[in-house]
């Protein structure tokens, strides 16, 4: 049975719809990311679950209870804010203890739980420090401990790693994953960083303009994007215009001088083909012909830009010693039919 259910959740600001009929189910213990560019409605969705914004329509059910009927301070959710939102006048331990105090937990139990929570995030030595005397990463950990110590039924993370530097961010990603495995709390992570979402989540929810574009595991969304927006947003992709039509062996899509089989049933007409740069290889026949415009050495890999009749393509090849074409050379590129995604052309505008 689904643990958290968002049912046609809607929020409007004036005549602008920030969140448009968002429906989603989350299983207990799952880490799910709301991923999208800024203004896609992911933070608004989170704020409605947290109760800081009132929904204009729809329902949120958590473990069978209507969440929207409760006040924000009665929902029992843990939240980690982008700015951490620590209480600057309290020490790390006092920050963590705040939620327990509100629950009127006895002093001795409280101290023990605070110590456990600080230990979980690796800050057992820092209980007496004030947030201002801590680094960004440490503040982040305090915020996490503060949200986890109340044993929340749901942990909401609002861009938790965006204020950290790159190295710290990677460390915290591993840390978050470890903690999630240890405590098993259901988590919703809001982020605009696709690599963060893919590294951390069991499933990603790609959002754009207030609507859900795709809900899938990170690998599924990456390999088989539902539409052009998802294909473009999750990593680099080549989007080639083509024409879908019925062939001898089933549906095919024609891109310039090449023809590719389409697995799923599709109506004939203009379409688009998405294929990742690292999935494209140089072939002898049966591919798309073009000319190498440029090649750039990037250490572990080579980056090629290829001019074809269907537009420019980006190709990434591993630097493994195999012979690679030179600039201005005529080449033919190809890919496995499993590695591409075909979508109707009109969705490209999304």
């Amino acid at each position, binding site marked *: 049975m689904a643990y958290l259910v968002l049912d046609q959740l809607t929020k409007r600001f004036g005549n602008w719809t920030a969140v448009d009929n968002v429906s989603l189910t989350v299983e207990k213990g799952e880490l799910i990311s709301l991923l999208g560019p800024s203004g896609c409605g992911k933070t608004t969705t989170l704020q409605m679950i947290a109760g800081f914004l009132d929904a204009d329509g729809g329902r949120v059910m958590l473990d069978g209870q209507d969440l929207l009927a409760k006040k924000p*301070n009665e929902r029992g959710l843990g939240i980690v804010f982008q700015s951490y939102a620590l209480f600057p006048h309290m020490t790390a331990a006092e920050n963590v203890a705040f939620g327990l105090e509100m629950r009127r937990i006895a002093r001795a139990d409280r101290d023990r739980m605070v110590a456990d929570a600080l230990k979980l995030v690796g800050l057992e030595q820092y209980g007496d420090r004030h947030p201002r005397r801590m680094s960004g990463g440490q503040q982040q950990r305090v915020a996490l401990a503060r949200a986890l110590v109340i044993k929340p039924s749901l942990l909401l993370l609002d861009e938790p790693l965006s204020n950290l530097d790159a190295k710290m961010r990677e460390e915290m990603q591993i840390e978050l994953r470890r903690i999630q495995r240890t405590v098993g709390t259901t988590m919703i992570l809001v982020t605009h960083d696709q690599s963060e979402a893919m590294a951390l989540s069991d499933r990603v929810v790609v959002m754009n303009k207030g609507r859900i574009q795709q809900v899938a595991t990170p690998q599924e969304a990456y390999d088989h994007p539902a539409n052009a927006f998802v294909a473009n947003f999750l990593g680099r992709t080549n989007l080639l215009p083509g024409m879908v039509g019925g062939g001898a062996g089933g549906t095919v899509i024609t891109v310039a001088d090449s023809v590719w089989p389409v697995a799923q049933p599709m109506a004939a007409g203009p379409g688009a083909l998405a294929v990742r740069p690292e999935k494209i290889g140089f072939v002898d026949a049966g591919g798309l012909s073009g000319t190498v415009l440029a090649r750039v050495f990037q250490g572990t890999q080579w980056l090629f830009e290829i001019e074809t009749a269907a537009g420019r393509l980006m190709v990434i090849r591993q630097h493994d010693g195999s012979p690679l074409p030179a600039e201005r050379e005529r080449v033919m590129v190809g890919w496995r039919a499993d590695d591409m995604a075909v979508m109707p052309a009109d969705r490209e505008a999304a």
Partner: protein
Amino acid sequence: MSMAASTESQVQATAANPSTHAPPPRRPRRWPWTPYLLSAPGLALFAVLLLVPLVMTFLLSLNSFSFYGGIENVWQIGNYADIIADSYFHEVFLRTFRIAAVVTLLCALFGAPEAYILRRMKSPWRGLCLLIVLGPLLISVVSRTLGWALLFGSTGLVNQGLMGLGLIATPIEFMYTETGVIIALTHVLVPFMVLSVWASLQRLDPQVENAALSLGAGPLTVMRRVVLPQIVPGILSGSIIVFALAASAFATPAIIGGRRLKVAATLAYDEFLNTLNWPLGATVAVLLLIANVVIIVGCNRLVERRYKQVFE
């Protein structure tokens, strides 16, 4: 350009500006007193307009005065001894600081919530309400105080309104009482508190309140445990301004309090202009300044120690 010309121009440039051509880029040697020169105009203004009059006032307070001889240029501390010994002066100073303390307290009680509410208001109303709050500062002190005098009289609007509502049977004495002075001073000084609390609210992360809510704190607990401790610096700096201004206020106590209800500022004024006892007036002024500084610095220390973490 020929070689010779180029060398010549180089020589010229070197002569004109030796520092640009020195082999390692050496900065021109600085006068050690450049900073002092740069701040000299400000310091001069400060000295001439504030320091000199203060010193002169202090020196004047050491002179003596007699009705027939006028001011005598002697150096003694008789004036201070007189004030310290006389219970009349005790009463005036006590009243001054009692009024200032109550006004400060009222300003904090009204100003801090006012600033908080203002911050949460939406766009057109916020500007309008801020204008209303700052209004008293835009009106001349005399017309504002006379306005209060009109409202306060025994047949004034306030008393007639209260009696009309049946809340009181006989008019409340506002004129020539501390109550009246306190109300009028609070009215004009509240904006200073609002502005200074406002400034400290600006630094408050709005998510901090949400964080406290999410941890299960009710709105009142959020206010008491999270918001209030963080705006203490604002309340304190507002209190310092309000206290200093209330303790040295002249026009409002003079008009609402009249000649009977003396405070330190009106006392000094009367000594100077009515009794013509300038040394005694100067002594009152100096004592008012010292007491103000001692009280403000003392309270400041106390609160800063209590809320050490917020001030860092």
